[in-house]
Each structure stands twice: as structure tokens, then as C-alpha cells.
């Protein structure tokens, strides 16, 4: 699993408003890449173009190329549904389906494609995914309870389990810990460490310590002012970005001079 991502000169629009301008970068397989930057600089927007979730927003559009192992996501005839199976996503706020039990939540994505899964297979998959998300031990006795009954951190891990159950190649995470307490945050960070053995992971975070802890590479985005588009300022190894950035604004940002 896990694939290489290449972005070429990407512009992202909301209607006529250009939210992100001219981003080009390459993401290695089986690595963790962190996006950092001040609020409104387009981190979320850019992340969502990587699995075509962006176009779910009415009026949103994209110019440029995103290649996953050489296949352009925005090529003609590309089915966004297929893209999203390969590039999974975890959101800022945990969003388990409230009407489903924990078990159903994990199977939600799988059931779409493979409706006639035997109970045994399904059980295996549920256990495996929940194990993968470090949640199995906490919920194994209450798989039939609603997912919304879990704590925030558990819900977020449930969402991760749901995502890995469809065996994607890339997992995108948009500030997955920002709504969580410190203990849950640590649990998720540990999990990311494990997941990167198998998946390509891209994570947006406003917490620079988190970025420096979990990521191999870091991309810093910035914005010149309200109404201006966000830009990729610098993209390099995490250690370089935090210790010896080449741009002044990166240094200002990581040293906490603003944001």
C-alpha cells in the first residue's frame, strides 16, 4: 500500500475567490507530512484537494494536477468515488455516524462495495481495523452500542478505524487532535507513528510541537492578508523547518512570533 503524491502548480478556488495559489510538492510513500501555517492560509482547502473532497463544496473548483503514483486525480474520466477509496480522510471534529453502532461504523465504508460479506469476515475486519486504530480493547465489549457514546478521543480513533477498514493508500488528517484532550492527543500521535508503517499520511495541525513530534516533512503555508490566496512558503524536512528554515516568515512563525 501507500503511494507517492505529486502536486503540480495547483490553484484552488471558492467560486471566483482563489484560496490557494500555485502549490507544487511531492510526498513520499510511508511518510508523515505535516501542513502548518496560520489560520485561513488554506491548509484545509489544500488537503481536501488531495482526495477530491474539495469539490463537494458548492462552487469550488481546482486548476492543476495532483498525481497519485502518476495518475492524475483530476484527469478526464476519473471517478472521485474511486479516488476517495484510495485516499481516506479523518476530519477535525470526530464524526462517527450517529445512527450506527460502533461495529456498523467501522464497516460503513466496506459495506458499500461488498454487501455480501460473511459475518466471520466482517468480524475479522472490525477487530483488525479497531486494533489498527488502538481502540479494540476499549470497545470490544460494546460493539453494538452507538458510536456517539464514546469520548471524543475514542470517537476520533473510531473514525480512523473506519478509514483504514476500506484499506486506503493515503490517509489525510485535518487537525485530528484539535478537539481532543491531551491524553487522547497522545494516543492519536502514537497511532500515527504506527500507521506510517503502512500508509502515506498527511496531517494538518496548528500545533507546532505536534508537527515536530510526528512528521518527517513539514510544509509551511502562509497568507499575505485577508482576501489574498494562501501559498506554500517552504517545504522541507521537519527538522530543517523547525531548526533552520530558509524563509524569514517560516522562522517567524515557528518561533511563535505570530499566529
Amino acid at each position, binding site marked *: 500500500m501507500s503511494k507517492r503524491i505529486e502536486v503540480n502548480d495547483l490553484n484552488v478556488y471558492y467560486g471566483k475567490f482563489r484560496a490557494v495559489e500555485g502549490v507544487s510538492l511531492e510526498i513520499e510513500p510511508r511518510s508523515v507530512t505535516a501542513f502548518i501555517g496560520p489560520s485561513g492560509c488554506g491548509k484545509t482547502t489544500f488537503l481536501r484537494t488531495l482526495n477530491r473532497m474539495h469539490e463537494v463544496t458548492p462552487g469550488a473548483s481546482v486548476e492543476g494536477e495532483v498525481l497519485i503514483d502518476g495518475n492524475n486525480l483530476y484527469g478526464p474520466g476519473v471517478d472521485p468515488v474511486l479516488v476517495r477509496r484510495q485516499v481516506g480522510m479523518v476530519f477535525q471534529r470526530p464524526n462517527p455516524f450517529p445512527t450506527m453502532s460502533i461495529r456498523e461504523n467501522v464497516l460503513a465504508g466496506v459495506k458499500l462495495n461488498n454487501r455480501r460479506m460473511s459475518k466471520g469476515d466482517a468480524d475479522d475486519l472490525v477487530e483488525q481495523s479497531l486494533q489498527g486504530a488502538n481502540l479494540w480493547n476499549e470497545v470490544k465489549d460494546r460493539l453494538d452500542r452507538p458510536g456517539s457514546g464514546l469520548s471524543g478521543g475514542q470517537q476520533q480513533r473510531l473514525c480512523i478505524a*473506519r478509514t483504514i477498514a476500506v484499506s486506503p493508500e493515503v490517509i489525510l488528517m485535518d487537525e485530528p487532535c484539535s478537539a481532543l484532550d491531551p491524553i487522547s492527543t497522545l494516543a492519536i500521535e502514537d497511532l500515527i507513528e504506527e500507521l506510517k508503517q503502512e500508509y502515506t499520511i498527511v496531517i494538518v495541525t496548528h500545533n507546532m510541537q505536534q508537527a515536530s513530534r510526528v512528521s518527517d516533512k513539514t510544509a509551511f503555508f502562509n497568507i499575505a492578508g485577508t482576501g489574498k490566496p494562501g501559498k506554500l512558503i517552504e517545504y522541507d524536512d521537519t527538522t530543517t523547518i523547525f531548526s533552520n528554515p530558509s524563509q524569514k516568515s517560516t522562522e517567524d512563525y515557528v518561533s511563535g512570533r505570530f499566529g
Partner: protein
Amino acid sequence: MTTTTKAPPIRGKQRAGDRVFSGSAVFAGAMILVTLGAVAIFLIVQSIPALFATSEDASILTTNFWDYVWPLLFGTVWAAALALLIATPLSIGIALFISHYAPRRLASMLGYIVDLLAAVPSVVFGLWGIGVLAPAVQPLYTWLVDNMGWFPLFAGPVSGTGRTILTAAVVLAVMVLPIMTAINREVFLQTPVLHEEAALALGATRWEMIRTAVLPFGAPGMLSAGVLGLGRALGETMAVAMVLSATGAVTFQLLTSVNPSTIAANIALSFPEAYGININVLIATGLILFIVTFGVNAIARWVVSRRKEFSGAN
């Protein structure tokens, strides 16, 4: 809590404005209670003479009150159920179209157009039902009876005018469609984007997204839409009175001239010529109708509350 030593300047009296305002809010709430209570009490008081009346006291009765009201009750429920059967899938379809399929601009205009349907008075639906709809569907009914008469619901003889319970149900369905659509539309629009995106991110098509996120989330709302529609359909009067060939039989057949009447329509038909105890009899049938709608509401609430744990509300 502990008390302080000094007299603080931040002490004040309870504000008169606040008291008056909250008082009148409570009063208004109480008025609802009073009104509903008044409706119930007046209906009951007026009904009591009828409940034990026989054909001796009221010319409208052939035996006693319960024999009189039973076929009406059957017809009321049957017609409303049919109407709901037609209106529910349609309203869900339209609501989905407006909330998730149509382009935004078009959607708001369509919403307005459907809302306009709600404004058409029921007499007009009655006139339309007799003059336009019934003649239009009559050939279809003939075809159904000729070719599918073996199916009990479609048994003949076919009505020569098309003014059957099915036509009445269609008219009712058209009448309850706007209100049901409006509610369904609102709940569908309120589906958290979070959940819709969660489904899409798992690689769901639009329909699969609707199935996994929108419909389960909207289920309680759809149920209340159904209940509201059912309430309207149960209580609709003039259109049914005008469209339906109500002979008072208890039958499930959809396409014949012989159809059960409904409580509301029967009141409208009989009230003008009613006098003495007959009026009480009719009011008593109204009480029964009230109880039925009350019951439907209560059941719906119970159903919703039973599934609360799994609802999107928490």
C-alpha cells in the same frame, strides 16, 4: 456559597421588565394548555349525549353511536393511510431533489413553488378533483379492473366516475405533499456536513452518501413529517366530501363506487341538515377523530424517543 462583609454596589432589585416579560411568556404557554383543554372539554361535554344515544334519540343513527362511527373511522384511517403511502415517497423524493440534487438557485425557487401548493384552499382541490382528476384517472381504473381485477384491492365493478377512495387519497396526497416536503427538506438540509463528508470520504456515491448519512439522520424528522401529513390527511374535510363517493361501506376495494366515508367529510355532509341530538352525534365523531390524531402524535413521539440514543441529536 459564602457571604461577604461589605455592602456591594452590584446589588439590585429583581427587574420589573424581566418579570413582566417572563410572566407573559408563561401566560402564553398556559393559554395553549387552556385552549387545548377547552377543545377537549367542549368536545367531550357535547359528545356525552351522543355516546349513549340510539336511533330513537337521533335520526342519523340506525342502531347506536358506535355502529355509526366505526365505518367512518375505518374510512378515515384507510384514506389517510393511502394518501400517506403515496405522499411519503414523493415528498422524500422532492425534498431530496431540492436539498441534494438540484442546483442551489433552482432549489430555492422550487422550494417556493412547492410551498405555494400549500396555499391552494381545499375547496379548490375538491373542484379540481371532481372536474379534472377523477375523469382523468377513470380510464386507468377501468383498465386496472379489467386486467388486474383478480387482485382484491382492484376488484370491480369499476366506478364510472373515478370518484373512488383512491382518487380521494391522491387528492389528499397532493394536499399534504407541500407540508411533508417542507419538513423533509429542512431535515435533509440540516444533515451535518460532517457526516455527509465522512460518507463521501469513504468513497460513497451520492446515493450511498444519502443512504448512510442523510436518511438515517433525517429519520425522526421524516417521521414527524409523516405524522403531520397523516394528521392533515385524517382531518381534511371539504376535498374528501366533494371528491369521494362515500356510501358508508367498510371495504378495502380501491376502484369501485362503494367507499367508506371519513369522519371529517361526514361531518361536512351531515352537519348542514343536522339538528337536535344529531349535532351531538356529529361532534362526538369529531371527538373520536381528535383522539385518533392525538394517538398518532403520541405514538410518533414515543417511537422517536425510543431511538433517541442512535439519533443525530447528541
